[in-house]
């Protein structure tokens, strides 16, 4: 039987190294292909690592708590009588821990997801469970945790010149002269190499430095004025990724207000039914968007440099707030799913996102995203697009507001919807027409059931 190398998997596009949280199998355990071997922490999430071969887990080379570079040998699966000595000794020289400051290199255009969002309190309110990105790095204070050891500091630590960022000499020089941090620059050259134009584009977006370090105000020891809290991998990714959206992607915003009276009533009715999954306002919005996107494929599209990729399926990114940031799991084929299915799946995704149990394939590939801050009593806000998606819908709270009707003044439920659009992909009218349809679907919510 073959000897199977267990290597640190590449669990996201940006991933360069991962930390073993814990091994779920011990040396000597018999492994079937597909067994979960270990939990790995990446910049995005904690991910379960599967075995790709059968045999006995003969050797664990990287113990829990340590990091390893993507592709590094972290364990060996083989039959008891297989000779793994060579493999192990070979790894001993090269392996165990990744360079302390393994840092994300040039992000490639696909799929780094999060948007900048303040850490948010979790709510019991299950009606809306997908909060999400607002503008800006206005992170509120949070309790200062004792600085974790080196691991979490990695994306922030480490000076320049450790060679891990792939960039042309000219790009490096311009970056040095203009104060652009290459770690935050998206590389458009071969293999994600950062070239001159990338640095020049980034140079016009001074947002970077501000975004990286979330200021802390929590009382520490008396007399200490401030404290630098190392970035968690997730915060570092958000900090790196958001300027890459906001600066190069020309955003424009279209806002509308949808009457939610009928939708509210329908939801109460549905939630009164026995044996049916609970439907949230966000589920209704997800369903409305999925239906409307099929009709407006131009909004379900991505800028590809020399072309616009129009998607015929809707993979819905649903932003979920976490203590330390946010993550946008992807609900695949949302257009083909019923309201109940969407409700069940999106609850599951949100739940597992909070437990950091998302699978790799659930972290990328969205064609459109929804960000909902409804549970925070937010009137309206606008969100930052997750490239390479072409648009994101920001959903505010459903609020009771005075409305003018034919009969006079009344009270109605309204929700503010703000669509952020990539102007390279679509124009205002296209965004507006899409929003109009979303509004109509919410206004006449029975359409969401057919």
């Amino acid at each position, binding site marked *: 039987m073959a000897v199977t190398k267990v290597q640190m998997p590449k669990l996201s596009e940006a991933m360069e190294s991962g930390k073993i949280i814990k091994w779920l199998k011990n040396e000597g355990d018999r492994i079937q292909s597909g067994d979960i071997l270990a939990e790995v922490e990446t910049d995005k999430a904690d991910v379960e690592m599967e075995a790709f071969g059968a045999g006995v887990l003969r050797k664990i080379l990287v113990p829990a708590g340590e990091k390893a570079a993507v592709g590094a040998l972290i364990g060996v699966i083989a039959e008891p009588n297989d000779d793994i000595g060579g493999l192990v000794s070979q790894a001993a020289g090269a392996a165990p821990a990744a360079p302390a400051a393994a840092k994300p290199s040039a992000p490639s255009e696909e799929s780094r997801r999060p948007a900048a969002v303040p850490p948010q309190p979790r709510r019991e309110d299950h009606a809306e469970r997908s909060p999400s990105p607002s503008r800006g790095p206005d992170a509120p204070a949070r309790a200062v945790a004792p600085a974790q050891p080196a691991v979490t500091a990695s994306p922030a630590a480490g000076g320049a010149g450790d060679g891990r960022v792939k960039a*042309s*000499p*000219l790009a490096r*020089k311009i970056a040095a002269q203009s104060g652009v941090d290459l770690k935050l620059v998206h590389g458009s050259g071969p293999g994600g190499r950062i070239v*001159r134009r990338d640095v020049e584009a980034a140079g016009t977006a001074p947002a970077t430095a501000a975004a990286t370090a979330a200021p802390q105000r929590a009382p520490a020891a008396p007399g200490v004025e401030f404290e630098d809290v190392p970035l968690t991998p997730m915060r570092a990714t958000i900090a790196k990724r958001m300027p890459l959206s906001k600066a190069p992607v020309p955003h424009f915003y279209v806002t509308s207000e949808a009457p939610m009276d009928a939708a509210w009533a329908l939801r109460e009715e549905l939630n009164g039914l026995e044996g049916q999954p609970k439907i949230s306002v966000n589920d209704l919005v997800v369903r409305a968007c999925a239906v409307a996107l099929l009709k407006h494929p131009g909004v379900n599209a991505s800028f590809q440099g*020399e072309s616009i990729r129009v998607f015929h399926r809707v993979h819905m990114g649903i932003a979920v707030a976490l203590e330390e940031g946010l993550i946008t799991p992807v609900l695949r084929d949302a257009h083909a799913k019923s309201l109940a299915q969407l409700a069940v799946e999106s609850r599951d995704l949100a739940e597992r996102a909070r437990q950091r149990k998302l699978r790799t394939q659930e972290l990328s590939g969205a064609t459109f995203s929804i960000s909902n801050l409804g549970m925070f009593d937010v009137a309206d806000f606008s969100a930052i697009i997750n490239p390479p998606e072409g648009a994101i819908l920001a959903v505010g709270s459903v609020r009771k507001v005075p409305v003018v009707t034919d009969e006079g003044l009344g009270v109605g439920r309204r929700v503010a919807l703000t669509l952020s659009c990539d102007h390279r992909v679509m124009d205002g009218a296209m965004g507006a027409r899409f929003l109009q349809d979303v509004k109509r679907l919410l206004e006449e919510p029975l359409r969401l059931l057919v």
Partner: protein
Amino acid sequence: MAAQAFDVVIVGTGPGGYVCAIRAAQLGLSVGVVEDDRPGGVCLNWGCIPTKALLRNAEVVHLLERAETFGITVQGMQADYAAAVQRSRGVADRMAKGVEFLFRKNKITLFPGTGVLRNRTTVEVKGTSGTETLEARRAVIVATGSEPKSLPNVTIDEKTVISSNGAVRNEAKPKSIIVIGAGAVGVEFADVYRSYGVEVTLLEALDRVVPIEDAEVSAQLARNLSRRGIQIKTGVKVSAVKAGGAGVVVETDGGKLEAEQVLMAVGRAARVKGVGLEPLGITLDRGFVKVSPTMETSVKGVYAIGDVAGPPLLAHKAMAEGVVAAEAIAGKSPRPVDYGNVPSCTYCRPQVASIGLTEAKARENGREVSVGKFPFTASGKAVAMAETDGFVKVVADKKTGEILGAHIIGPEATEIIHEFAVGRTLEATLEEIIHTIHAHPTLSEAALEATLAALGHAIHI
């Protein structure tokens, strides 16, 4: 006759067309190519390759003439121009056969004849043995190239008023010739003819020879050509070319000149006529077919590459475009051609090669530049070869060290230039060049030294 269907039909098999055909075949597409001359186009048959053969002859003549320099006595030397042309034809034949071999190897079907687009998927081929219709399932590629231009009211008869097409074929050399146009073509033929003892007058409307090159290169080349007895007249406007005198009289704003022949080397025009482009509504721009970065024309599914798709009219640009088109058609996402990084080469003696911006252009663009120059007189290899004319000049951005341009005149300039081409593609700065150890002794050391000079610390000067 039933139409034959291919994934891709290419009209023209010059360096753009044949490279595109091979790349498309490599990517698993079936390819039919149409050629009204011989495979290889102007480049292989009438341009780049045969002229390089003639220039090599010119170089050998030159070497023998100065054999004394090397302590070698040559007696009774005779340089037979007809033999030079015959050798050149042999070289062209061999290369054309090479293209035919590559077609067979890649299972590309060649249709001799004139190709005309009937619609965006159909090409009609009028050959000697009748008409065939080719259907393109994925794309038609127009790679019809270019032909020599003339001046208004001047007809090229290929007898007294010749173009490069005639010059490359004529086994008889004239006693005297007036070359109109001192770009690459004009300068190269001036060199060949002069080496074989023809009285050459080189006219240029602009103020210097090889006017697209860096001004210092032009000045150096003018000195070299004059020293060899070529009469150079720049800033001269030709008003008429007439029969008379020794054969033909050229009237200019500076007086009349006469010679046995005139060579028109005033540029080339795209072959866009009779290809069926107008009825399809394919958009032209200044006489060339307008194309997208993936070489697609204004009509979907119809591509254009090479000279017909616009300047620079260079075989290597055409090849690069052919690859881009083939890959785009095969559904890949090729990197578009970087038109700012195409080397330009003139194979006269001394050779001229350049890439990127001239010093003047860089300054015009508002760049603060540092310039480094290194003469071949200070290069050990060049002195050993007794080829010390010329220099390497590097133009860099003062702040970042970006290599904005490189300009070489001298021995094997056309080979040395690629160091800067690769450097520019990789976005190397002056520092990466100087940290690259260059073998000693080589002509390429001059590139290193010029780069050092741009940073103010050349070693060998």
